[in-house]
């Protein structure tokens, strides 16, 4: 009986409180009105400094939140890659994916940022190279970018002028660019999985983020030969006007080229190609693979829209987000249909690869094409990724997770698609990076850039892999590979209390 009374008592209390408020509120209101009335006629004073710092704050929050989403893509990659590999290599893949961001952080801080964004020549950044220590008065903006923060009159003075168009502090720029560099390094991990020595992978990751990624990055985003306006004469008149909004080339195909080099030097996993036949080596956990792709899909909403590096009025980031999602959606569907037609079944791992293919492909063009075009780009990339998986297997290039088909193949395709679907209005309003070229002329510039990046990143990566192979060795012993890298490399197992009948 007691219990029954309690709620009633509670209700009475609440009602009582409400009544008290109802009595007090009008007085509070009157008081407030009375207090503000004398001040009202005065003309509002616009404090430009306050507005400027508010604007910077909003833009910085957007850039950092987007960067955190991209950081979280590490979790996505870890889940996709471990899920698509066998359980005996799960600890190894998780450890690789985990430590790669730590390695990237150090590499990018020590030298990567400086090489990529330091002022220098068309090929390399040469100022403020080490430890992000160059002069920089960010969030001040470069001369031409007053519109990015109309409340500020401060002019940029520093050595990282290639990125002086974004109205955020230096460390926000650094962190956003760092998570991108980390992504490129993670791509390699999946392609070389289940057979690479842990130490060799770790050293390669350090080198990639310190010396390979920032070089091609400088060409495209650091004011170098590809991103710059072409000059009248010389080699810089041949290249230039290359566009890659969020990194189909800068991040994904660079990671893809490095991975391809690794796959070639390593060779396929034992038993993958036997008697001229491709033998399937099923992954051990499709639940984790699917969750990983969903995390990546979410992370891409930071990757692409965040690449505006400013929230502004919100229209650019909205366009880019929808374009990104549209491509992921059409690519998932087209990969599903392609796999269904060719394999007679809608293979789950192909659908997951399809979604990622669409995301990779739209990364360069998302701020240069219409929403309809992004749907078409996604549609093509979903078909492309399934065919590319078969193609790489034909060449006996063993890629356990489809990283080459997703990142290399579609990184290249997306970069070209930017040219083919180039829309001047959107390039002006969303990317604010219009080249004034026709789609055909833009496609030609895109193609030149793709060739230059591939022609340098691929042999450079090959060289690093071969040096590692000659010095420390990059592949585990056949015995260790059969037993699993978890025990061989790390001395423990991912699922010690599960019984697994066959390894």
């Amino acid at each position, binding site marked *: 009986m007691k219990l029954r009374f309690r709620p009633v008592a509670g209700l009475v209390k609440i009602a009582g409180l409400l009544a008290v408020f109802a009595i007090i509120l009008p007085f509070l209101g009157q008081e407030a009105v009375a207090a503000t009335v004398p001040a009202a006629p005065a003309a509002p004073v616009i404090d430009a400094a306050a507005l400027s710092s508010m604007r910077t704050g909003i833009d910085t929050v957007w850039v950092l939140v987007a960067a955190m989403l991209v950081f979280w893509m590490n979790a996505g990659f870890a889940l996709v890659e471990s899920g698509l590999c066998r359980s005996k290599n799960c600890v190894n893949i998780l450890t690789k994916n985990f430590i790669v961001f730590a390695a990237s952080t150090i590499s990018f801080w020590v030298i990567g940022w400086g090489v990529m964004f330091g002022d220098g020549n068309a090929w390399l950044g040469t100022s403020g190279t080490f430890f992000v220590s160059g002069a920089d008065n960010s969030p001040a903006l470069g001369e031409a970018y007053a519109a990015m923060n109309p409340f500020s009159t401060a002019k940029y003075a520093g050595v990282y002028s290639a990125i002086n168009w974004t109205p955020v502090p230096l460390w926000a720029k650094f962190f956003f660019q760092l998570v991108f560099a980390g992504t490129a390094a993670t791509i390699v991990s999946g392609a070389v999985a289940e057979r690479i020595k842990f130490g060799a992978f770790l050293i390669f990751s350090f080198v990639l983020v310190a010396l390979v990624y920032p070089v091609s990055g400088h060409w495209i985003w650091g004011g170098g030969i590809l991103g710059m306006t072409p000059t009248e004469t010389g080699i810089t008149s041949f290249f230039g006007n290359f566009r890659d909004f969020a990194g189909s080339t800068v991040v994904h195909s660079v990671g893809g080229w490095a991975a391809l080099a690794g796959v070639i030097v390593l060779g396929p996993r034992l038993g993958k190609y036997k008697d001229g*036949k*491709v*033998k*399937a*080596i*099923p*992954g051990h956990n499709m639940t984790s693979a699917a969750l990983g792709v969903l995390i990546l899909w979410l992370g891409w909403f930071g990757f692409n829209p965040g690449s505006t590096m400013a929230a502004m009025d919100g229209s650019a980031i909205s366009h880019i987000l929808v374009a990104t999602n549209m491509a992921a959606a059409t690519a998932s569907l087209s990969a599903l249909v392609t796999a269904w037609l*060719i*394999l*007679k*079944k809608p*293979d789950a*791992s*192909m659908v997951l690869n399809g979604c990622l293919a669409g995301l990779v492909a739209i990364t360069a063009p998302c701020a240069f094409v219409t929403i309809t075009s992004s749907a078409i780009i996604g549609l093509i990339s979903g078909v492309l990724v*399934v065919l590319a*998986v*078969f193609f790489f*297997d034909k060449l006996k290039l063993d890629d356990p997770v*489809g990283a080459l088909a997703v990142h290399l193949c579609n990184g290249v395709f997306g970069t070209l698609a930017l040219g083919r679907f180039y829309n001047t209005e959107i390039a002006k309003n969303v990317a604010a990076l219009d080249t004034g070229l026709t789609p055909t002329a833009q496609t030609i510039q895109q193609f030149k850039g793709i060739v230059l990046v591939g022609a340098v990143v691929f042999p450079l990566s090959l060289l690093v892999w071969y040096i590692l192979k000659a010095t420390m060795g990059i592949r585990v012993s056949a015995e260790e590979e059969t037993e699993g890298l978890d025990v061989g490399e790390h001395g423990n197992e991912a699922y010690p209390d599960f019984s697994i*009948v066959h390894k």
Partner: protein
Amino acid sequence: MKLVIAIIKPFKLDEVKEALSQVGIEGMTVTEVKGFGRQKGHTEIYRGSEYTVDFLPKVKIELAVSDEQVGKVVEAIAKGAKTGKIGDGKIFVLPLEDVLRIRTDERGDSAI
């Protein structure tokens, strides 16, 4: 005394257990096993390449029974495990020399 070993389809385990308790069986040992008979394995496709699954998951039931029970027990297992399709499994009946209940030191029929 007899030892009855039955290999059945895993999803039939509950029905078999039910049928066995109806004929008064109070204990059994169950193991998850893999194997094949006439059913053979099957092929699956992963990322465009085929692979064969030769050994199919089955459940092995072992139980010791008295000579009087064995007929009913075999019948009960067969009833519970039958789908009429290939791969239903087999029942083996073996002579059983002795049984010891560890807790009480009972032997033979009284230990079953």
